[in-house]
């Protein structure tokens, strides 16, 4: 008999099941746009609900999404730090 832990996993998956879902490839195609929308401070889930749904239901795609988000947040953070440093340096020079 199916054990309770697995029954819960299956019931949760069924509760999130929609008639129309993106496949992993379709989600992957949209992932860069989804992450950039999110990093721009916009509501990516509202703009791309099928991508958001797939990311909630697919562990593999969610891992890749979170890794991409970390990568881009870091690169934007380092870019902001560089801009800050350049401004500080300019203000010292001008002052």
């Amino acid at each position, binding site marked *: 008999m199916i*054990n309770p832990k*697995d029954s*819960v996993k*299956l*019931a949760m998956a069924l*509760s999130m099941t929609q008639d129309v879902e993106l*496949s992993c490839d379709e989600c992957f195609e949209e992932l*860069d746009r989804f*992450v950039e929308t999110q990093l721009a401070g916009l509501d990516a889930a509202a703009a791309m609900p099928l991508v958001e749904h797939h990311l909630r239901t697919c562990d593999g795609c969610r891992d890749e999404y979170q*890794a991409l988000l970390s990568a881009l947040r870091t690169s934007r953070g380092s870019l902001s730090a560089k801009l800050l440093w350049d401004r500080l340096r300019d203000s010292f020079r001008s002052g």
Partner: protein
Amino acid sequence: MKGRTNEEWLADLRGAERDRALADLRVVILRGLKAAFVGRVRSLDATVEDFAQDTLVKVLENLDTFRGESRFTTWAQRISMRVAYTELRRRRWRDVSLQELLDRNEESNREPEALTDRTNSPQQETEKKITAETLEGFIVEELTQKQRDAIVAVMFQGMPLEEAAQRMRTNRNALYKLLHDARKKLKRRLEAEGLSPEELLKAFGDA
């Protein structure tokens, strides 16, 4: 590093500036991979070097598919994350066969303690048992053997889709669709029987 528009990346990677553009892209990819996997993989520098190299090959192979809907570097980093996770999953699961997982699942379901929660009242335990039997009946009646194996491997035993797909002689995309069809069939059967997933969760004490 030279700042580039999407068009400049494409032109440089296709033209005389290709080597310089590849070197610049490699820096971006390496930085992203390190940020994503720091503290999560052994020998980070060497590992991400390999991932970056494989990513550059894939980027060049797929340049024509870039639609310009994001920054080029975001698109390339998206590919790097797929490359990295594909390899990490392969390493983590390489010694596990599908049959081993199916057997492991069968065994865990036979253990009495897996089926009984001593904190529940006898009535709750009876209700859980009946619900589990009902769900199992739907699985047997509605799903193909392939769909049942996929549910056990991916949903119950946590095997990544692409690893399970490889063992089932299919691909990640097709396996996702197979599982989606299985979930839809089970959901429809529940509805036909006047049940809902939420009621199942309640019966299992998880809602």
